[in-house]
């Protein structure tokens, strides 16, 4: 991925520029974008799967995110922050998706149109935790996915979601408290957890 020339990066992808670029410049920019896209798409897809809970919507979400990144590519000056920019676009798109009227209607159905393939490693506590995450409203789920899967700091999570650090703290704290109650109420799911062995030392 070569150098990226453009104006300062921000989160506004509304300006469309590619079709005004000279042909040779566009080819170079497309190659540059494609290299980045190919390297990072699988990571974006995994995050999107956790946000949406199923693969097809996640694919759709990521494709839209990539399209917006493509449109904004020339204006992203700071290569070190392209991934953060993509993550922000992905989460924005996810949240706006749930605000759309047709999406809210879909919430009334009981069965998701498609579920991810079951994971042989995935049962007990792991399933209980995921089942809990899947019940969270979109904004809180995004906080949990960014904090505990992407492992962003509170400040990075706040920046990605466009909310305050305090809101991130309160959302995460509430989610963890509910999660703790869920686990405590169901000792059969394995309270020892993944890290229990280390605690025994």
């Amino acid at each position: 991925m070569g150098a990226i020339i453009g104006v300062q990066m921000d989160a506004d992808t509304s300006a469309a520029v590619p079709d005004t670029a000279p042909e040779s410049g566009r080819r170079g920019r497309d190659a540059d974008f494609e290299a980045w896209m190919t390297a990072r798409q699988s990571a974006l897809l995994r995050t999107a799967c956790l946000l949406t809970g199923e693969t097809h919507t996640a694919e759709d979400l990521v494709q839209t995110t990539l399209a917006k990144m493509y449109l904004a590519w020339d204006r992203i000056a700071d290569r070190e922050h392209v991934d953060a920019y993509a993550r922000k676009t992905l989460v924005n798109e996810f949240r706006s998706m749930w605000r759309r009227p047709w999406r809210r209607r879909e919430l009334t159905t009981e069965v998701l149109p498609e579920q991810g393939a079951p994971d042989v490693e995935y049962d007990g506590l792991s399933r209980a935790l995921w089942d809990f995450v899947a019940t969270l409203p979109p904004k809180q789920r995004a906080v949990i996915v960014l904090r505990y899967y992407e492992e962003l700091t509170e400040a990075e999570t706040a920046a990605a979601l466009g909310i305050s650090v305090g809101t991130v703290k309160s959302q995460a704290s509430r989610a963890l408290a509910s999660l703790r109650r869920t686990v405590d109420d169901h000792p059969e799911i394995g309270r020892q957890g993944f890290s229990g062995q280390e605690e025994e030392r």
Partner: protein
Amino acid sequence: MSDDRRLSEDLHESLRRRAAGFSPQPAAMDQVVRRARGIRRRRRTAAGLAAAAAVAVIAVPTGLTLGAGPQAGTPVAPAHSGSATPSMPHSTKPAPTSPPPSSPSTPSAPSSPSSPATQQTPKLLTLAGIARGGSVGIGWLEGSTWHGAQGGTQTLPAGPYFAVTPYRGGFLVVQPRSSADPPGVSTPHLSWLDNTMHPAWSTCGGPRLALSGDQMTAAYSKLSDCGPTATDTLHVGIANGMADSETLRDVPAGKLAEPVGLTGQMLIYNLRDLTAGTQQGAWYTDLSGQQPAKQIPGLAYASGVDTSRQQVAGQSANDPQTGMVVDPVTGKVIWSRQGYFPGQFTTDGKYVAAAYGGGQGPPTQYAILDAATGRRLTYFDLGAQGMSVVATAWNPDDSLLIVTHQGDREAILRLTPGGQVTRVSDVLPADAAHAVVLAIRP
């Protein structure tokens, strides 16, 4: 570990496993470009409508479709205010044959860009497709050609080589056993090539070499011979001095010591059964060799040493899938992560490299972690690109060098803590004549 910390780690692990269970299809470049064009058309339409509404000159057409925007190639409409995810005005409903590209409710519509019927095989990132950027700031071997950290090349005797480090005007090298070696131990060959590139000594020995943080001291494990009764000794030598190395300590019979790293006061090493090859724990010894060697509590084996904090990375003795960083003397766990395999630290102790992913198989992803907390800062999914990792080493600029195989090609990639991936070598044939070996780092 506090309840909150444990719950956070359990949650991370649950999400990691869940994410690994999905199998989404990546989009191809032309699909993304098509969708981008659709978004651009809608933006132009929206901008036009907003302008029209503002001057109240015309009525908003209720039947406007997606294709009603300006022709491609016309000047770009001014950016409208709003979020990064502008949506269609309520009055601009798409025609039935043009579903919104982001609509998951129409996944199988023939005209949908993400329809399986029109899905194209996504292109893998190729080594050649990764742009050049940055440089290799350490020495490395390409076949038998040594590329110095400061430039310049030297030719070593014909390889292959497993490990190499500059040592006393020449090189300390680890190579496969030769057919001339007698049957006995299964360890590789260890040699010191002097400044004429001839072996001053050569014998069987441990496969690993270790360097102190200042790169002045090297440690290695040298067997008395290659036969079945060979005995092992740990050696420490001044890498740029003229005197021969000193024997640090004898290794118990039937065992092989594999140096991992040197701190100011101690050598960290793994002990292995010489014939069976099984791990016998991680150990440390003081550099005077006067004190008895001691086992590091809780570690199955060590894989990296933080010379600045004097901490050790490795895998848990209780769970080989759990990577951890510990205090070698007390065994106190600084942090641990299930599913991760931490390795080398940067010399400033800021970062530690770690492999992870791949379920029960070999790791497919490489990450840069915060060495103090274990927090993942960035990662690169090589498995998704059909790539595999041959070796890694830290560059002096705190970027991670990754020797990567893809098919019959090999190259050195550079991953920065900020997530930038570039290629720092030519794309080479993955054969013995070009095999890449990065110099040992502290």
